[in-house]
C-alpha cells in the first residue's frame, strides 16, 4: 500500500484536477458555513451534542441493552457481531434463510468497512448500492472517496462515459439531470426486484428501540418498503438515549455536511410491517478497543457528517483514496490506526495540525489533538528511522546551547558559501520546489550579544 504522501504526490501530478477537486469540496464547506451561520446558538448545539454522546460512551453497555430489549419487544431480530467477518456471516445467514438472490443497499459505511459486497458476491448474491454516489463507484469498481459524497472525485463527463459503458446510455456530454434520470430508471428495476434491503443506521434510540436512517434520495425508504426483509447494520456507537435527543443531531448532521437544514429523508423505523422481517446487526469491529483508550475514546462521538473532510486542506488536495482506509480524511486518520497501526501509520502525519477539523466538527471531537497523540504512539511502535535520526540530532543540538550556536554558524555559512548545485541536492527536499531562506551574517543572538 502506498503511504499517504506517495498517493498524494501521484494525485498532485495533475494540478488542474487537484484544483477542481479542492474547489468542489470547498464548495461543501462554504455551504456548510452558510447553513450553520443561520443558527446563532450553533456552539451551544455542538456542546449539547457532544455531551449527549459522551454520556452515551460512558454508559454504552446499558444503552445498548436497553435498545436491544426495546427492539426485541418491537418484533425486531437483534444480532451482535464482534467483527466484520461475523457481521458478514450474520447477514449472509439471514439472506440464505430467505433465499435472497437480489439485494438493494442504501448507503452504509459500516458494510463498506466490513467488506460486505465482495463477501456476498462470492455467494452469488447480487448486491446493488442505491445511493447515486455509491452506485457510481460500484459501477466503476472503486471505493468511496468521501463518506457523504462517495463519488465526489468523479467528474460529470467521467460518469457519462461510465454510464455509457455500464448502463448503455447514449452520450450526454455530462448532463447531470440526464445522468440522474438514467441512474434512477436503472435503479427502479433493482428496487422492484429486490428480495431484501440493507440500510445503515444514523441514530439508534435506546428508549424506543427505533432507529433513524438519513438520506437525500429516499432510496433507503424505497428499498425497505418494497422488500420483504430489512437488515439494518449499525456500529455500537450509533446509540442516542432518547428520542428528544434526535433533534439536536438532525440539526447538526446535514448542516455540517453541506449546509442543508435537514436531510430530505430522516426515516424512523420501529418494527416490521405485516409480513416483513426486520433485523438489526450491531457491530463492534474494534470500537470497544477505541472506547477503552482514554486518549481516543471520543472519536466514537462521530456522526459521519464529513465536515472534517470538506474543511481539510490536505484532504481536498489529495483526494479520499490517498488515505487507503474506508473512512478518509481527518476522522479516518484517527480511527484507522486503531484498526491497523502499521498499515495506517502514515495517516496521522497527513496533517499540518491546523485544527480546522476540530473546530468544524459538530460533536466537538478534538481531532487534531488525537492526530498528535497517534504520532507519538506510531513513532514508538514503528519508528521511521530517517526521521528518528534527524530528531535525535535535533535533540542533541537543542539541549546544548553552545552546540546550538556552533551548528547555527556552520549551517548559515554552508548556505551562504556552497554552490547552488550542492546546496540543492537530491536530499534537500525542502529545496525541491522552494528556496532556502537567505542566511544572514549574524544570528539574532550574535546581534544581541554585540549590542549589549
Amino acid at each position, binding site marked *: 500500500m502506498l503511504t499517504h504522501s506517495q498517493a498524494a504526490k501521484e494525485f498532485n501530478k495533475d494540478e488542474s484536477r487537484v484544483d477542481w477537486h479542492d474547489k468542489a469540496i470547498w464548495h461543501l464547506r462554504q455551504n456548510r458555513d452558510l447553513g450553520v451561520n443561520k443558527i446563532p446558538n450553533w456552539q451551544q448545539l455542538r456542546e449539547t451534542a457532544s455531551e449527549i454522546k459522551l454520556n452515551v460512551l460512558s454508559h454504552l453497555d446499558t444503552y445498548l441493552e436497553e435498545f436491544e430489549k426495546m427492539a426485541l419487544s418491537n418484533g425486531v431480530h437483534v444480532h451482535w457481531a464482534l467483527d466484520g467477518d461475523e457481521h458478514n456471516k450474520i447477514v449472509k445467514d439471514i439472506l440464505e434463510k430467505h433465499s435472497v438472490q437480489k439485494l438493494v443497499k442504501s448507503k452504509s459505511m459500516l458494510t463498506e468497512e466490513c467488506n460486505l459486497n465482495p463477501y456476498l458476491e462470492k455467494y452469488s448474491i447480487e448486491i446493488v448500492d442505491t445511493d447515486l454516489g455509491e452506485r457510481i463507484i460500484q459501477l466503476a469498481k472503486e471505493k468511496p472517496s468521501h463518506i457523504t459524497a462517495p463519488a465526489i472525485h468523479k467528474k460529470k463527463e467521467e460518469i457519462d462515459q461510465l454510464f455509457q459503458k455500464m448502463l448503455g446510455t447514449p452520450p450526454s456530454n455530462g448532463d447531470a439531470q440526464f445522468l440522474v434520470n438514467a441512474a434512477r430508471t436503472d435503479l427502479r428495476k433493482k428496487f422492484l426486484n429486490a428480495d431484501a434491503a440493507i440500510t445503515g443506521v444514523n441514530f439508534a434510540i435506546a428508549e424506543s428501540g427505533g432507529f433513524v436512517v438519513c438520506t437525500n434520495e429516499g432510496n433507503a425508504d424505497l428499498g425497505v418498503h418494497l422488500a420483504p426483509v430489512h437488515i439494518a447494520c449499525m456500529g455500537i456507537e450509533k446509540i442516542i438515549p432518547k428520542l428528544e435527543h434526535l433533534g439536536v443531531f438532525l440539526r447538526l448532521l446535514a448542516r455540517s455536511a453541506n449546509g442543508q437544514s435537514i436531510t430530505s429523508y430522516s426515516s424512523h423505523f420501529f418494527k416490521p410491517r405485516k409480513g416483513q422481517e426486520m433485523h438489526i446487526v450491531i457491530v463492534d469491529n474494534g470500537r470497544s478497543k477505541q472506547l477503552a483508550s482514554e486518549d481516543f475514546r471520543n472519536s466514537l462521538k462521530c456522526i459521519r457528517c464529513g465536515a472534517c473532510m470538506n474543511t481539510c486542506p490536505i484532504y481536498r488536495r489529495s483526494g479520499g483514496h490517498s488515505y487507503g482506509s474506508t473512512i478518509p480524511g481527518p476522522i479516518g486518520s484517527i480511527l484507522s490506526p486503531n484498526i491497523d497501526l502499521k498499515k495506517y501509520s502514515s495517516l496521522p502525519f497527513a496533517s499540518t495540525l491546523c485544527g480546522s477539523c476540530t473546530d468544524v466538527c459538530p460533536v466537538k471531537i478534538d481531532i487534531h489533538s488525537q492526530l498528535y497523540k497517534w504520532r507519538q504512539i506510531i513513532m514508538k511502535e514503528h519508528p521511521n528511522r530517517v526521521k528518528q535520526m534527524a530528531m535525535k540530532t535535533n535533540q542533541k543540538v537543542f539541549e546544548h*546551547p553552545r552546540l546550538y550556536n556552533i551548528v547555527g554558524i556552520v549551517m548559515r555559512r554552508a548556505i551562504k558559501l556552497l554552490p547552488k548545485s550542492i546546496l540543492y541536492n537530491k536530499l534537500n527536499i525542502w529545496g525541491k520546489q522552494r528556496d532556502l531562506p537567505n542566511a544572514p551574517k549574524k544570528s539574532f543572538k550574535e546581534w544581541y550579544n554585540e549590542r549589549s
Partner: protein
Amino acid sequence: MKVGLFIPCYIDQFYPQVGVATLELLEKLGVNIYYPKNQTCCGQPMANSGFECYSKDTCKLFIKNFREYDYVVTPSGSCAYHVRHHYNIIEQNENVTHLRKNTFELCDFIANVMETLHLDASLHKKVGLHQSCHGLRGLKLGQGSELVSEPHSIAESLLLKVQGLELVSLNRKDECCGFGGTFAITEEAISIKMGKDRLTDHIKNGVEIITATDMSCLMHLEGISKRNNLPIEVKHIAEILNSQC
C-alpha cells in the same frame, strides 16, 4: 513586570530582523525585556514529528531559562502554543505551570496583557494577513471561520492601527499555508500545493506584503514565492508593527 524574550530557533538563525523588530517594539512600548542567552528551541520540531520523548530536556532548558520571568513573549503563535499545551510531558512544578500560563505570542501580549491601544507605526502598503493556524485556532487569537460568533482577530486589529496600511480581504481568510513542520518535507507535494494556493489568493487580491504571527509559515511561502519569482513579499507582523515608512 519582568519579561523574557523567546526568539524561536529558526528566527534566531534565519530571520534575526524579526527578533530585532520584536525587541525594539516591546522596548518602545516600555516593556522591561530580557533575552536569556542560553535559549535554543521550544521542542516543537521533535514533538510534532512524534518524538515528544526526545524533546523533554529541551523543554526543561526552556523552563530553566525563563523561570525567573513574569511573562515570556515570543514572535510565534506556534511556539507559545507548544509551551502552553504540550509542556505536560515534563514534571509539573511551580515554574512549569507558571510558564505554561504566562508564555504569550507577541500580539496577544500587546493586546491582552499590556492592553496597548496606541501604536506608533506606519506602512503604506497593501497587506494580506495570513492567519497562522496555531495562533488562530490553538491560542484563539481570533475567530476561526469554522465557528459561529462575532468575528475578531487580534492581529488584524493591531494591523489596522498601522498608519497607511491597507488590509486586504482574501477569498479564504484562514486556510492553512501547508508548512506544518516536518509535514513540509514528508508531504512535500501537498505542502507546496497548499503554499502556492495561499500565495495565489493573496496575489489575486492585490496584496503586496503577506504578514503573519508565525515566521515559519512565511518562510515556506517566501521559499515558494522566490522560486517562482512571484510579485509578493513577506514580513513578520513584528516588523510591520515596528515599521516607520
